[in-house]
């Protein structure tokens, strides 16, 4: 017998889901067409802040193809004008009293076809009385600022919350004793995940059965089902949420949006299925944005470059409704992991959330609950320190990175990092980059007056939310179920609660079963995205699928395997305790010829074999996995840029990314995830931003104005890997979906700032557009979150 490979199921493998997508046979929400289906369209507010005086829907209702017009007043009569947000606030479904951001939903038209619905929204006449606007978060708490949320009892200002983490006194002490203290204000501007498929829904209320079926672009179908039950009062067992193929999520499809609720109401009112799909402007203007953190960070260090502490005060722009999507106890998400990858004595952060006249959201776009902001902050601070001390930024990082023997490591704000060998990863990246040669090339170019920059970012992520003791969303603990059925012929069906938006779950999760059960991945069908067909779980975001549901899958497969052991014992007339497992077979210890395969066991478990104690029949199993901790993937990124000083244009020449996400189930898919995130980093660092003018007008409401990177801005990514398993994950795996989005922006910005060193530049806010870079060189950068004047 040949030696069994260490992994039976893991390894690069073409994706099962590709077969339908390459033929154009995916089923996305807008591909769904039901008999008698009606089409919804939303009328949005042109004002950022205005009182609604009247809404006249007469002309729209008279349109021959219009079936219904729903306004805030109609919803109010049903008790549905407002809905709870994921952060304990309420959000208007359709505005009744005021509109609070440009693009806010005011009325919903239902018509026989999409074009007529669009025509009819033009026929609605709304009278507004414009109010003063808060479009700059930094003025939200001014005394003269208008109170945006006067719907809330007793509100006299735009303050949402103050939150802190770490030890303030200890941090003050460390800073007081430091040789070097550096401070920098930095903005992580408002951006949008902008998946190419916008958000949408088909809602179908069957009045006879009382069952509501919803096909929606949701990353969290089970959570949506519960929330729909809570919002509409429909019984939860009469709600089925189906998340079909999803054209990218990136956190944009976690929340519940007014259009969804309106479509459900519309189906109830008309008795027909109602489809609503956002157009691109609606997507960019109304659904969950990301970031918008105004940070003042400081770093303290010794003269010889030992980091002692960091601290930050942050103003968080949450928009008009506090609807950030993160675990309930963490109003600033996981931002307090901002000590990054470094050993330090103390840290402290304070975050103040404020209302502004902008769309709600804040936690989205592959941010791992705000670790994006945290990594950006600390990696900029480290580079500032390197510049101040005139030491190489790679060297400074190596000096301060956590050492392997420090793990598990509890950081100054209380996170327990599970595992890491950071220096090895950074050294690999430096080697791949040819770092010393790059620095030499840079020096030569500088001597010729050319601008070249090399930027490093070393990030630590905290993903896989999470332990239910600490983490819930609206009271729903963040544990995931999994069910595994093994059919008589040994083919398996795995049912998982997480939902793919492109991550390749149908392949990766089959590989986990293959690995654990010793059957080919092709013999495993993965069912996901249908609440009637899958166990409860919190969904796919925050890089949690592999850490939580991947673990659940491993655990449930092991349960099946153990059950198979009992059956095999009966089949082999041996004590199950004397059996050994190897690559899909149980055999009597010491006698490899004696075994039975999982396929034989499955047939026997369904057959007439007298089953042993503890096996009722079949091999099927279920589990719920409650992760003991988050997983802490990390990586070292190096970006090389050229900057044209005459035009301010940045071009990314190279990007080296070494990720350590523990054990890689499908390395091909892991690399694909990293590629996408690196492109995000280029986009955010160089072009993506949603700015607002003084009237609260959204200045990035289409793909002409909100720029996403193309094939021309992205270099050919150079990837490397180290593997440091997570000690607490059953497979040793960590999440990776967001690593590159989290880690890469800082590398790009550090590279550009490095390029501009000859001009004495210390910092520049994203996005580093040609105009912004040129102005930075001139010493007069502009606010990237406001209108350029």
């Amino acid at each position, binding site marked *: 017998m040949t030696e069994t490979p260490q992994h039976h199921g893991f390894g690069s493998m073409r994706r099962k889901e590709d077969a339908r997508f390459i033929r154009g046979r995916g089923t996305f929400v807008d591909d769904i067409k039901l008999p008698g289906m009606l089409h919804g369209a939303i009328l949005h507010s042109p004002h950022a802040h205005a009182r609604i005086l009247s809404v006249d829907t007469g002309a729209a209702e008279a349109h021959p193809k219009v079936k219904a017009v729903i306004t805030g007043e109609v919803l109010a009569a049903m008790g549905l004008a407002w809905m709870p947000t994921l952060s304990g606030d309420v959000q208007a479904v359709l505005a009744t009293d005021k509109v609070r951001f440009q693009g806010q939903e005011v009325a919903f038209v239902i018509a026989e076809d*999409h*074009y007529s619905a*669009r*025509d009819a929204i*033009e026929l609605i006449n709304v009278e507004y009385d414009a109010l003063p606007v808060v479009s700059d978060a930094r003025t939200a708490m001014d005394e003269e600022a208008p109170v945006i949320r006067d719907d809330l009892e007793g509100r006299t200002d735009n303050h949402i919350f103050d939150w802190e983490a770490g030890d303030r006194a200890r941090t003050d002490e460390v800073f007081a004793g430091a040789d070097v203290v550096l401070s920098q204000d930095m903005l992580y501007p408002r951006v949008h995940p902008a998946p190419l498929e916008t958000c949408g829904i088909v809602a179908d209320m069957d009045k006879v059965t009382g069952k509501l079926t919803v096909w929606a672009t949701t990353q969290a179908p089970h959570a949506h089902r519960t929330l729909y039950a809570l919002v509409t009062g429909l019984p939860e067992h009469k709600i089925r949420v189906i998340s079909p193929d999803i054209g990218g999520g990136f956190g944009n499809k976690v929340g519940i949006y007014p259009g969804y609720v309106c479509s459900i109401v519309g189906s109830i009112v008309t008795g027909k299925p109602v489809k609503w*799909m956002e*157009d*691109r*402007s609606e997507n960019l203007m109304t659904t969950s944005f990301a970031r918008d953190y105004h940070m003042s960070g400081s770093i303290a260090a010794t003269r010889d470059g030992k980091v002692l502490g960091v601290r930050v005060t942050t103003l968080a722009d949450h928009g008009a409704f506090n609807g950030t999507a993160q675990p309930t106890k963490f109003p600033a998400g996981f931002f307090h992991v901002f000590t990054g990858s470094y050993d330090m004595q103390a840290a402290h952060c304070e975050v103040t959330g404020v209302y502004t006249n902008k769309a709600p959201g804040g936690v989205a776009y592959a941010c791992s609950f705000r670790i994006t902001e945290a990594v950006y902050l600390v990696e900029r601070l480290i580079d500032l320190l390197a510049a101040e001390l005139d030491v190489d930024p790679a060297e400074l990082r190596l000096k301060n990175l956590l050492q392997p023997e420090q793990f598990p490591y509890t950081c100054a704000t209380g996170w327990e990092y599970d595992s890491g060998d950071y220096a090895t990863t950074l050294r690999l990246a430096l080697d791949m980059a040819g770092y010393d040669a790059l620095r030499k090339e840079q020096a030569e170019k500088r001597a010729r007056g050319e601008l070249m920059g090399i930027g490093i970012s070393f990030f630590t992520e905290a993903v896989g939310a999470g332990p239910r003791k600490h983490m819930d969303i609206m009271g729903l603990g963040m544990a995931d179920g999994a069910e595994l059925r093994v059919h008589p012929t040994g083919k398996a069906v795995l049912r998982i609660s997480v939902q793919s938006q492109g991550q390749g779950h149908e392949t990766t999760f089959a590989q986990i079963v293959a690995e654990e059960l010793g059957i080919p991945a092709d013999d495993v069908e993965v069912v996901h995205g249908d609440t009637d067909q899958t166990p409860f779980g919190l969904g796919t975001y925050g890089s949690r699928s592999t850490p939580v549901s991947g673990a659940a899958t491993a655990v449930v497969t092991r349960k099946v395997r153990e059950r198979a052991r009992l059956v095999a014992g009966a089949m082999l007339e041996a004590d199950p305790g004397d059996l050994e497992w190897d690559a899909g077979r149980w055999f009597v210890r010491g006698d490899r010829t004696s075994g039975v395969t999982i396929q034989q066991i499955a047939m026997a478990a369904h057959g007439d074999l007298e089953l042993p104690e503890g096996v009722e029949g079949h091999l099927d199993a279920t589990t719920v996995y409650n992760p003991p901790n988050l997983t802490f993937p990390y990586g070292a990124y190096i970006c090389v840029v050229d900057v044209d000083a*005459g*035009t*301010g*244009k940045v071009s990314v020449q190279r990007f080296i990314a070494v990720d350590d996400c523990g054990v890689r189930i499908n390395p091909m898919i892991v690399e694909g995830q990293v590629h996408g995130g690196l492109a995000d980093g280029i986009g955010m660092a*160089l*072009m993506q931003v949603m*700015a607002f003018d003084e009237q609260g007008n959204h*200045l*990035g409401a289409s793909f*002409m*104005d909100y*720029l996403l*990177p*193309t*094939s*021309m*801005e992205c270099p050919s990514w150079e990837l490397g890997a180290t593997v440091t398993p997570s000690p607490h994950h059953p497979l040793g795996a960590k999440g990776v979906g967001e690593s590159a989005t989290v880690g890469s922006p800082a590398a790009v910005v550090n590279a550009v700032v490095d390029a501009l060193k000859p001009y004495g530049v210390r910092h520049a806010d994203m996005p580093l*557009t*040609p*105009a912004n870079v*040129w*102005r930075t060189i*001139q010493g007069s950068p*502009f606010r990237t979150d406001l*209108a*350029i*004047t």
Partner: protein
Amino acid sequence: MQVPSHFEYERAADVEQVLALLARYGPEARVVAGGHSLLPMMKLRLAAPDALIDINDVSELSYIRVERDELLIGTLVRHAELLDSPVAAEHFPIFREAERVIADPLVRNRGTVGGSLCQADPSEDLSAAFAAVRASAVIRNAEGSRTVPLREFHVGPYETVVGDGELLTEFRVPIKPGGSSAYEKVGRRAGDWALAAAGAAIWLDGGNVADVGIGLTAVGAAHFVAAEAEEYLRGRPADDESFAQAGRIAAEHCRPTADQRGPVDYKRHLAGELTTRALRRAAERART
């Protein structure tokens, strides 16, 4: 997805039919070719013509050729065709350089040269290129045709001299020996509209500038032309110093406005920088 409101649609087979349809439908009718400027405006409901007259079948307007001492470009020529045209590139490399940075390959497969000029977007690239090479536009109407210098073609943002009942049919570019051309553009990303762009056509007489055309887009230059810089350069040495000064003059005389692409001072700087660069490269080419 946003969709247009209702309109009538007619398809014309030849220029005569276009003119007849324009006469029939009156001023609220619009000619559509590639539709890549007009249809997005209609989807966003910023434009709502009563009727569209589709000229995609008017194949008589689709040609690039040299006749006598002029390069003739029919208005139905797709951007991709101008980009790939050896004859256009031979005489005016500026067209290939400008086309390469106009939108993207798919848009260029459909969008037309005439459509871009008629849209008259203040950031449109070919307006600057045609202005630089001193093209003229042929406009047909019921009475016959008239020829308008490109430098008099634009009346204002999104407005041209093409009147009701008229059809833009051709561009004519005079070919003169001893010259060459170049185009320089800065966008925030591939496919972006210009933050600023400059096109230069230059003819040398020994070491001196015999004649020069400088087109500017997206910076509020009157008629897309840097006239003062042209004036300055004529007869001067074709060297870096002159080109740098021409850039300064071009920057000084343009009138950019601030938007999210950049502030006024940046765009003004860019107008000068790109003018200088385009001149330098055009002159290099003219010398070889």
